[in-house]
């Protein structure tokens, strides 16, 4: 007799647990507000990334096309996998001294791991992360970027 009661109890409890699960799923089915999908390409205009989001490394320039990079190469030393290459050149300044300035700050986005060490260790805060994340290109060479814009100059007063 007890076995029969247990048998029926098994069925009852089993069916009840199944119905509970179905209650949850059917409730979500009937509540379209709970949909969390973002319609990505459509919402590009309104999409706001979180401010610290690591999209790519950039070198901020001001209106006068000036940046902070002194070409010291600390970012290159700190980069764990050689994504940054700083090419500097020696120029003669107005007062006749020789000075090392940056020629090209090459950043290989394709192999960057976004560890953030370059941005953090830069002594003059020349680098920053941008939140741009759409990096897909058809040519791998396009992922090798020169961060300092052509004709840009070191901002006055940055150098120690």
């Amino acid at each position, binding site marked *: 007799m007890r076995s029969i009661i247990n048998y029926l109890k098994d069925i009852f409890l089993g069916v009840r647990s199944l119905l509970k699960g179905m209650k949850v799923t059917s409730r979500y089915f009937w509540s379209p507000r709970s949909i969390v999908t973002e319609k990505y390409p459509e919402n590009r205009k309104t999409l706001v990334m979180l401010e610290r989001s690591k999209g790519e490394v950039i070198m901020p320039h001001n209106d006068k096309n000036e940046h902070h990079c002194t070409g010291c190469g600390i970012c290159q030393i700190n980069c764990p996998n050689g994504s940054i290459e700083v090419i500097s050149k020696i120029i003669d300044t107005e007062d006749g001294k020789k000075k090392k300035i940056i020629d090209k700050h090459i950043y290989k986005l394709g192999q960057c*791991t976004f560890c*953030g060490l370059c941005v953090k260790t830069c002594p003059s805060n020349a680098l920053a992360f941008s939140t741009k994340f759409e990096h897909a290109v058809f040519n791998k060479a396009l992922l090798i970027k020169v961060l300092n814009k052509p004709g840009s100059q070191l901002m006055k007063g940055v150098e120690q």
Partner: protein
Amino acid sequence: MEEKVKDIDTDEQQEYIINIGPQHPSTHGVMRLVVSLKGETVKNVEPHLGYIHRGIEKMCESLTYQQIIHLTDRMDYLAAHMNNEVVCLAVEKALEIEIPDRVKVIRTLMSELTRIQSHELFWASYGMDLGGQTCYFYGLRDREMVLDIFEETTGGRMIVSYNCPGGVMYDLHPNFQKRVKEFLKHFRKVLPEYDDILTNNVIFHERTVGIGPLSLNEAISYGITGPSGRASGFSCDVRKHEPYSAYDRVKFNEVLYAEGDAFHRYLARVEEMRESMNIIDQLIDNIPEGPYAVKMKPVIRLPEGEYYQRVETPRGELGVFIISDGNKTPYRVHFRTPNFANLSVLNHLVKGFKIADLISIFGSLDFVIPDIDR
């Protein structure tokens, strides 16, 4: 011809061998299990690893201690923060630096958030392994909220790279506390739903209760740590036994069960999510003020010697062993990863069970394959 007939008669030839993986939905990565079957019953499982071996330990030997951090992210990517933390703790221990309180609390908070998101993904993928695909989306839906918290503070979602020797990379975002509280409120609301869908489901019980039982002695001798070990009654929580960061000042229970089957391994993880929420509750309102990092020298040189540090990741005990010869790069780094140790018990657990149970047991041990191969 005769020889062939003879071969078929031997026992080994009668085994029905199928490959689960390297590309298989339920191995959660590139992992190959060579399964010998008799009918549907598993006779032997031979895991083949190394498909995603990247030589992280060797690479560490040529990187400075700051640079190692970003590689450790890529071992157990679901517990990236703990992987970072263990190296930082080892370096700090070697240098005998006093870490500010704020850093300790931040690290603990981040660790527990990481634990929640990792266990959520476990819950999600375990449901999917057993055939309930809806679980996966519910799990990921709620996990996104944690990842958003990470992104807001650290800039990375999964691969956070948030720690550095001496502290953390950036200060907490001003929204951090608000967001965490929002998440906890939401998560407390949906956890009963998780129970309705999976934990209390009768089919789920049938599939997991009594499947792949692991006794306490076996758990200790195989070195099974984390929730999988604690489900067998192995009290192995590093947070309790050897508190690091701010774990000595919070109260929480070590989730222990005696049964050690797949269901209790699952239950241990779900309960740990609740414990993690309690820990966060205790800390979130009293984050001490102070610096978020100790000023370190740009080049860190550890004194000559051997250093070991362990932390509790969502999958078990993660240890790092560093030998330093006084240079700016370590002489040798070894990681004692929980997944590698946990994998060793797989063959022992699945013998005699059905092939569907293999998936259930494999899922309940919650593997992250890149952590096994490193």
